[in-house]
């Protein structure tokens, strides 16, 4: 029984990491329907930024986190401005390839400039383990779990309650109509990218701290997993991304705990396909019926 609860904790903490990344995917997808392949790499940039400022400028945790969010936001906006904006009226698949190109550029550019060696992330928060009835949880796990829950609520509030959020929703439903009623589309999309990418920057520092290992290709695997999580939850939906992240985290943990670790990704993809067959637009996605 203890093992079971421990596995639940493991699953939740892994899930919160996927959820944190999936939120950024879902924000960008919601507004311009682009699979932002470079999202995982912005997460990598955030981690490297944290590594650099903590080691060289001796930032504390909070300032490292906040500055990484700024760096993430800035790089997201820059990427959007140079790589995606010129393609806003081109076929979506073109933008997708551009996103892949940007992702290649960030990965290989970083490994060219700073070598692809794995580095240990400075441990500025000392890990403390709490034991609750035989089940163990660390302070960093709680930190990540709490952060992703808080961010999810925060994002939901921004989208539903603020003026900017209303603009974002309007652009996502119909960009041309939104422009007609006086919404600055460029500004709204940039803001969305800034928001989504700042989440990735924060995730970089948090996850770097948690696992203590960063490298230029670190964004690839979790990037794809997080994207799968976002799709599973219904891409474009903020609660969907979190739920999708937690489902995948718990599923992966469960598969490994019953001894099928070699097939853990296969099972995740299988469940994904099955869920999509039952709910073709994910768990929280809106299934729009086409009208004739």
């Amino acid at each position, binding site marked *: 029984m203890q093992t079971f609860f421990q596995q639940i904790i493991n699953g939740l903490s892994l899930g919160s990491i996927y959820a944190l990344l999936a939120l950024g995917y879902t924000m960008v*997808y919601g507004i311009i*329907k682009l*699979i932002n392949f470079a999202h995982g790499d912005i997460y990598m940039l955030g981690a490297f930024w944290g590594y650099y400022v903590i080691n060289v400028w001796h930032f504390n945790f909070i300032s490292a986190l906040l500055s990484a969010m700024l760096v993430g936001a800035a790089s997201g906006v820059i990427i959007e401005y140079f*790589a995606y904006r*010129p*393609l806003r009226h*081109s*076929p979506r*698949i*073109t*933008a*997708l*390839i*551009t996103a*892949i*190109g*940007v992702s*290649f*550029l960030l*990965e*290989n*550019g970083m490994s*060219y400039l700073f070598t692809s060696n794995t580095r240990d992330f400075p441990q500025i928060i000392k890990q403390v383990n709490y034991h609750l009835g035989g089940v163990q949880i660390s302070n960093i796990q709680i930190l990540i779990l709490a952060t992703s829950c808080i961010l999810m609520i925060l994002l939901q509030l921004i989208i539903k309650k603020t003026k900017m959020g209303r603009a974002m929703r309007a652009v996502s439903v119909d960009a041309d109509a939104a422009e007609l009623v006086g919404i600055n589309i460029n500004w709204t999309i940039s803001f969305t990218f800034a928001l989504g990418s700042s989440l990735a920057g924060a995730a970089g520092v948090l996850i770097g701290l948690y696992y203590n290992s960063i490298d230029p290709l670190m964004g690839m695997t979790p990037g*794809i997993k997080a*994207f*799968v999580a976002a*799709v599973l939850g219904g*891409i474009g939906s903020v609660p969907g991304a979190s739920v999708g992240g937690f489902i995948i985290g718990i599923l992966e943990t469960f598969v490994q705990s019953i001894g099928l670790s*070699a*097939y853990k*990704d*296969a099972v995740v*993809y*299988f469940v*994904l*396909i099955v869920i*999509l*067959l039952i709910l*073709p*637009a*994910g768990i929280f996605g809106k299934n729009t019926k*086409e009208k*004739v």
Partner: protein
Amino acid sequence: MKANFKYNLIWLIVMIAGFYLINTLILVGVIDSFIANMLVTIGINIILATGLNLIIGFAGQFSLGHAGFMAIGAYATAIVTQTASSPVGFYASIFIGIIVSIIAALIVGIPTLRLRGDYLAIATMGASEIIRIIINNLKMTGGAAGMFNIPQFADWPTVYIMVCLTTIIIVNFIHSRAGRAVKSVREDEIAAEAMGINITKWKLAAFVLGASTAAVAGSLHASYLQTIAPNDFGIMESISILIIVVLGGVGSITGTFVAAVVLGVLDTVLQNFGALRMVIYAIALVMIMIFKPSGLLGTWEFSVKRLFSRSKRKERVES
């Protein structure tokens, strides 16, 4: 009928001439084994990308799982030629690869092709990853170490002929009644259904045909390279095939040829840049997409027929 025969004959002559051109260049020594290697890689990529272009460009189904079907063909050849190490065994293995990949494509396609757009892309990506992970854990396939010392039966003439064959099949499919049905599904599913077209059937037909050509490419890849591993057929391989399709122009077979050649040459030239090669490649990719958003050739298709009719028209005007 007669008119078409003329154009087919021209194509045939072009193909044979191409064959002789390459052969002569090799005999003269202009093409060394390094360039021959590049040509074979380009050829295999052409087979893969035309198949994917059929699925994405003509049937309008966004598939990200092409590498999985390629893996099936590659492993079929590797396993079969291990025991039946003869040209007959090799061709039989291609056939087996095609059959298995058709079965796999049916299993994957029948349920998932109901999905749309990005959801379909992720589902097919997942399916292809499942294929790869199963291969990675089977004993028969050598696990993660893959298989090596595969006897080489595919040299450049085999690949050349296969490129011609698969292209002929796909182009004929596109220009046939079936092709028009498939394209109507791409344009508007509801309208197509109203016209009495069975959309599931035609989507599936394109998907299966694309998958079986991918299996052929996989067989050639395995036999030419003589070594394969599950990691060759990951998400990145599917993406690199997709890049060729989009770069050439979604819905243009000519474009796919051009893009495969351009990327193949670019990649080979970049080999001289050491560690910078992927950086330059990435920049080139982003630049091409920004300045040519609909791909190098868009949906433009090279056609001998049009070439002729245009020159005829000109003659008429002049006279």
